[in-house]
């Protein structure tokens, strides 16, 4: 019973007039799982999230969330979801605490319950000393944490996070990731979208890579990297305007990707590969050996970078 998927979509589609935002995707999310939609802007991630959040009806296919149909039981599903939208949508004129109180009442929760829960969540979001501050005065990272706290006011089973750290500085991102880890450890199912590969690697047990409304790959971050990339990547920069000219110099050492400003060599051992490159008399301006990432997976699958 507990292994029943919390979210199950088959052939899910979303169209806006002639434009197809989501083009027949199949998704299953298990209880306690941390599941990600990775893809560039416009891949259909947000449209998919809105269907799961029951705020936008699917144009085709079937979807069940917590065993229910969004078309007929949207309110019941929403009562058990926590939603963290891309824009914070906080009430800027109200205090931090008031934001939580007002939002808790949307769920019809008793006042005393909401107050107690709000205090717990301030602790969780590390905003206790900002309790009576007007929201407008908070930093971007604090607003994001408050938005997450607000999304947890109804003790949801599934938390939907749309681009949770977009626009935050590195330190604020790490604080946020840490909070989300804690939620995950508590057994909350997380569903998130991101166009940051490091975020997907950090947070997701399993993810799908989306491009142009379709799923192009699915698996754990590690499995995806193993399947679609190599163990290591050698990055080479040459003193040329078009790196395609130098692709021939390194052919045969590993699979080559040509980017605007560098060459990528997908190899088992980066240092050995670099030796082989220099042995051929090719002298790059700079070189870098790193582990393969989801960025490489995306590049392999679509021929494009995640972040344009």
């Amino acid at each position, binding site marked *: 019973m507990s292994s029943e998927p919390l979210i199950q979509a088959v052939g899910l589609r979303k169209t*806006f007039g002639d434009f197809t935002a989501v083009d027949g995707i199949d998704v299953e999310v298990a209880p306690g799982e941390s599941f990600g939609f990775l893809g560039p802007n416009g891949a259909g991630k947000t449209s998919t999230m809105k269907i799961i*959040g029951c*705020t*936008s*009806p699917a144009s085709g296919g079937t979807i069940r969330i917590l065993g229910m149909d969004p078309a007929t039981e949207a*309110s*019941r599903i*929403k*009562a058990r*979801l926590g*939603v963290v*939208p891309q*824009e914070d*949508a*906080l*009430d*800027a*004129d*109200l205090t931090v605490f*008031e934001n939580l*109180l*007002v*939002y808790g*009442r*949307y*769920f*019809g*929760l008793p006042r005393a319950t909401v107050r107690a829960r709000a205090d717990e969540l301030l602790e969780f979001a590390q905003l206790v000393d900002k309790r009576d501050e007007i929201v407008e005065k908070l930093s971007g990272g604090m607003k994001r944490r408050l938005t997450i706290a607000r999304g947890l006011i*109804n003790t949801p089973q599934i938390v939907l996070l749309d681009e949770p750290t977009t626009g935050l500085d590195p330190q604020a991102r790490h604080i946020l990731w840490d909070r989300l880890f804690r939620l995950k450890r508590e057994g909350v199912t997380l569903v998130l979208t991101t166009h940051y590969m490091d975020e997907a690697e950090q947070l997701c047990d399993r993810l799908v890579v989306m491009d142009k409304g379709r799923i192009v790959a699915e698996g754990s971050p590690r499995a995806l990297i193993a399947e679609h990339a190599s163990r290591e990547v050698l990055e080479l920069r040459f003193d040329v305007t078009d790196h395609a000219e130098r692709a021939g110099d390194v052919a045969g050492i590993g699979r080559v990707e040509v980017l605007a400003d560098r060459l990528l060599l997908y190899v088992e051992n980066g240092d050995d590969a670099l030796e082989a490159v220099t042995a051929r008399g090719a002298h790059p301006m700079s070189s870098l050996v790193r582990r393969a990432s989801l960025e490489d997976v995306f590049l392999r699958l679509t021929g494009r970078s995640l972040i344009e």
Partner: protein
Amino acid sequence: MTATARTEVGTAVDRPSGGWRAVLAYWMAVYKRVWKGTIISSLLAPLAYLAGMGIGLGSLIDSGGRTAVEGVSYLAFVATGLLAAQAMQTGVGEATFPVMGAIKWHHTYEAMLATPLRVQDLVRGHVVYVSIRLAITTGVFAAVALALGAMSGWGVLAAVVLAILGGLAFAMPVYLYSCRVRSEQGYNVLSRFIIMPLFLFSGTFFPISQLPAWLQVLGWISPLTHAGALTRAAALGPASPFALGLGDYLLHIGYLLLWAVAGYLLGVRALRSRMEA
């Protein structure tokens, strides 16, 4: 017995929702932060009209022991009309920028609809909030008018209630407009080409019988004409030349209800299609 109790508990747990009351609580929380400013600003304009038109112009009109309309001072005439006009302004005001803000700028409605709240809860909560705002502004205005001697008697209480209805007859169609309009430029059109002319030609400052016939037609379409007729009749009492019979009361009230209810129903539909897009 046990089964019933369980069903009730089950229902409460399965479908908890704050409903329109939670939406009202949101608007009231915001209003609590700004109410002082709104009382002053929403009273200044009508008080200026009351002083300038009612007392200033009134002293000219009511000279030599005659009054503009038999037995009714111009001040009393204008004050009872302004009560309805002020409700119109408040109703329109609360259905324009706050609604566009909730839809477009602050994503308030988006956040609300991520919870069990439904579109109709959002609209109902707003209707009740606007009604409270109308009660406050018309109530304060009536109190000031009473103190200035521009109105008197218990009929004023009925006039306030009727003014609130008139305010809703504007607020709901304008709410519908807010759900459809894409930018605040649309409000310039609304205020210059609809609200301002209605303010002038709906019998607030002079009876619409003074207007040319074609403008009288406009006057009778305007909900403000009907709201003004009602507030005037109620506040000035059965002895005044503006008194209405029961049938007239029902006609005017029915006409205002038509605008309010149609605006509400179409507003729910418009908001739903706007938020699902």
